[in-house]
């Protein structure tokens, strides 16, 4: 399918002065927006954080921390309220790679255009 990268802005809802911008890999196999643990301090204190045991792509189970609420905005899409999963990431070149998961995509009304390698807007489907 190729890689789809999206620019994301994340803001702590309770302390909006704390925000960060990053490029994140769109990963429809991931659940939520996933950031490296070491970036957590840049977003300040969240009212709710919970240790969650999750399975990662390598099938390993790892301890992560899910914090929120945060305002998450994928560039070109509306900001949404959600949670962030903080995980000790090991990138290919030592650089961690944030992930945009399917919950964030669905909330934002974004879908992957696998031919155009981009995100496109989709209307909500009332099934």
């Amino acid at each position: 399918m190729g890689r789809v990268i999206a620019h994301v802005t994340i803001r702590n809802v309770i302390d909006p002065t704390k925000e960060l911008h990053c490029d994140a890999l769109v990963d429809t196999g991931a659940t939520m927006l996933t950031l490296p643990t070491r970036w957590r301090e840049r977003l300040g204190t969240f009212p709710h954080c919970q240790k969650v045991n999750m399975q990662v792509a390598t099938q390993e189970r790892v301890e992560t921390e899910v914090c929120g609420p945060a305002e998450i905005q994928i560039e070109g899409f509306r900001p949404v309220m959600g949670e962030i999963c903080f995980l000790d990431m090991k990138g290919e070149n030592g650089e961690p790679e944030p992930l945009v998961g399917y919950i964030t995509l669905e909330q934002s009304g974004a879908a992957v255009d696998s031919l155009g390698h981009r995100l496109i807007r989709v209307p909500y489907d009332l099934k």
Partner: protein
Amino acid sequence: MPKLSLRDLDVRGKRVLVRVDFNVPIEVRGHKIRVMDDTRIRESLPTINYLREHGAKTILMSHFGRPKGRPVEKYSLRPIGEYLHSLIHQPVIFSHDTIGEVPQKIVEHMENGDVALLENVRFQPGEEANDPEFAKALAELGDLYVNDAFGAAHRAHASTVGITKFMQKSAMGLLMEKELKHLRDGLEKPAKPFVVILGGAKVSDKIGVLKALMEKADTILIGGAMANTFLKAEGIPVGASRVEPDKVDLARELLDLAKERSVKFLVPIDVVEADEIRAGANMRNTSRLSPRHGISDEWQAVDIGAATVALYQEEIAKAETVLWNGPMGVFEIPEFGEGTIAIAEAMAQSGATTIIGGGDSVTAVKQAGLADKMTFISTGGGASLELLEGKELSGVAALTEKE
């Protein structure tokens, strides 16, 4: 006076606070939480989807378990929010707090069509105490209020009653409407013969319902442990069966009342008795019960017997309307569940209007795979009993009247 319905509200662009009943049974398996019976969640979908379709900002609130006014992780609604996501195919924004800054910020960011779920209202001591301060804090999150939690409508709590004092308009949701249509309006003048089947553990829980239904029913069939108290009132030995000794006189009064009103009031003519209440216990069908031949000493009734099943089946077959509340025996143990299942099957085959009034009989009907054969299955146990008693439910009484 009729109450306002969700359909009477202009919800587009409005923040609509919806009290739902997501108090569903779950099972924790490793890291996953499985919803064992999602009926209550599914039954609230018509209201949720109506609001999404009409461009409302839907803020759901519910209780879950009995956390007694403090946060208890196992009673968090978060997994239920995730489950709802899978049903509506749209993320449900979860607020870890029920009131305060967190839900306020979340609601501020909502757009038309979005759905949010607040954390368990019973994490707050003000919920069950119907505290006006808590009710007001909840009310501040919405412009309109909809009560769709039939199962909690008999309780005067902050999210079911108190909140309505702080909302301009409070209406009933589509599930609430459906429940009232079948259990209140539908049974006001039921097609005759009207057969009522009552079971369960205690006579004391059903006194009001029994008295109220004697005004309308042609036949009342009794099962479950409550039948033992009636058997004792008729002078039949009940062995070690569960009885409410202080309700024997009342049972006698109820039997007399039925005679007075010409209601056919049937109690088991035989039972299945067991030496213990556990799977694999020794069990047998008693002979025809009489004051001389009752349940054996040290043994207890665990189900209605074969002759009773046949008698009850015959009555159900003649009915035009059948209402059932409460199992006929200890149906959680499959060996003791045959009478309960037989009643469910008789109802399914009857061709009558069949109404299951909530509680364990709903579980029994589902276990028998007969849910789709019934006319209506209520989502509320206690609420349906109160409604059948003829009481007005506090959560309904508090809603805005139609002009």
